[in-house]
């Protein structure tokens, strides 16, 4: 049954580029929701984020300040947007902006803007630098890893972990390196872009799987869809994938949700070794860019997240279609210069 109220939902991550933000896929899920109708307000950092110009998906877009500008600047901008658009919900989709949105969640709710995000403790506990502790606490296999502040520290780990090693940025970026020279280059490149520390992780040989899902904050699984990447870009992003039925991956997801009482959407990056054991490589505390696959196989996670955020009754999904694929594609839009000018100079389109 459809709710009569037309919701106004703000969504970030409109950068549908080669390393895509999840926004456009989230919006497709929201527009296909069976329980409500909605208007979409895009929140963009750059004037060339493709979602800004997708007028069949996004009703209006506003620039928002970068996370480095601080939570106050973001709050003021959101209040300006709220005054004009009367937002019901905001769905942030970038790791780097989540801290600010989590911090502001209470204040925003007082103004009528709902969200459904992990707690600050959950957000911090799954940080890459804290993953070994996280694995120990919740009895989940994770690769050995250490946060380092100089490339010299990497060399002390090579004996312990063996080659190759995975060199990771605090928020984004990862490189597989096979020797000291490559390790030093990766350290310098990633630290220049994302800062310190750099995480050095043991490489687990195996097949990579991903699970996206939604936790209700009380330990219950509202949604969970596992996927195997079939086509990976040079940036490590899935350009094609297929849903699978692996019970171990689903059990691990349920264990993760139950033991952490995770609140909100997430993506687990898993590696299955030859012995069939799963290692948790990373927890992304947000909806992944391939979320439309979950929508397509029967679990509309953006819709369920909206319902949870608004305290509407939300039933857990119990099934999905396995063996369905997504294949991403690139599409050139023709855009009038006036539109680019409008968003660039006025910060609104």
């Amino acid at each position, binding site marked *: 049954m459809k709710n009569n109220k037309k919701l106004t939902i703000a969504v970030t991550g409109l950068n549908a580029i080669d390393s895509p933000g999840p926004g456009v896929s989230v919006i497709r899920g929201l527009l296909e929701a069976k329980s409500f109708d909605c208007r979409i307000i895009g929140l963009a950092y750059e004037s060339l984020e493709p979602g800004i110009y997708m007028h069949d998906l996004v009703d209006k877009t506003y620039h928002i300040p970068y996370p480095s500008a601080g939570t106050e600047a973001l709050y003021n901008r959101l209040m300006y947007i709220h005054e004009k658009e009367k937002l019901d919900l905001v769905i942030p989709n970038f790791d780097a902006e989540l801290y600010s949105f989590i911090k502001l969640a209470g204040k925003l709710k007082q103004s009528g803007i709902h969200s459904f995000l992990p707690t600050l403790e959950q957000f911090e506990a799954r940080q890459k630098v804290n993953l070994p502790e996280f694995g120990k606490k919740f009895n989940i296999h994770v690769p050995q890893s250490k946060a380092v502040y100089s490339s010299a520290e990497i060399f002390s780990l090579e004996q312990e972990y063996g080659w190759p090693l995975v060199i990771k940025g605090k928020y984004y970026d990862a490189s597989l390196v096979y020797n000291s020279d490559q390790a030093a280059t990766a350290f310098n490149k990633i630290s220049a872009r994302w800062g310190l520390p750099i995480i050095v992780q043991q490489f687990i040989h195996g*097949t990579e*799987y991903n699970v996206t899902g939604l936790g209700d904050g009380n330990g219950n699984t509202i949604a969970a869809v596992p*996927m*195997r990447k*079939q086509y990976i870009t040079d940036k490590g992003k899935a350009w094609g*994938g*297929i*849903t*699978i*039925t*692996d*019970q171990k991956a689903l059990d691990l997801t349920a264990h993760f949700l139950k033991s952490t009482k995770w609140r909100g959407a997430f993506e687990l990056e898993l590696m299955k070794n030859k012995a069939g054991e799963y290692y948790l490589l990373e927890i992304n505390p947000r909806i992944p860019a391939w979320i439309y696959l979950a929508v397509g196989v029967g679990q509309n996670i953006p819709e369920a997240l909206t319902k949870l955020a608004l305290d509407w009754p939300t039933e857990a999904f119990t099934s999905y279609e*396995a*063996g369905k694929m997504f294949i991403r594609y690139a599409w050139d839009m023709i855009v009038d210069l006036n539109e680019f000018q409008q968003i660039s100079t006025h910060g609104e389109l």
Partner: protein
Amino acid sequence: MKIKNNIAVSDNGFIFNPASGESFTVNQVGLDILNLLRKGEKQETIIQQLSEKYQADKAVIERDLSDFQAMIKQYHLIQNEE
């Protein structure tokens, strides 16, 4: 040796393992073997039937069948990983 129940085998030789997401293709001989294994046929029966259908020597069929079975085992398509 029996193929896992959840493995999907299409008429044109496309095989999909829904647990791992892996897919494979086999030729007509491979498809015949998979279908016979699915039916739970014994090794001797499979060799006999393939030998008749393809008019090949039983010893050759036996060797090729053994290679093929080792391969599908390696790809985790066998029940209980016998």
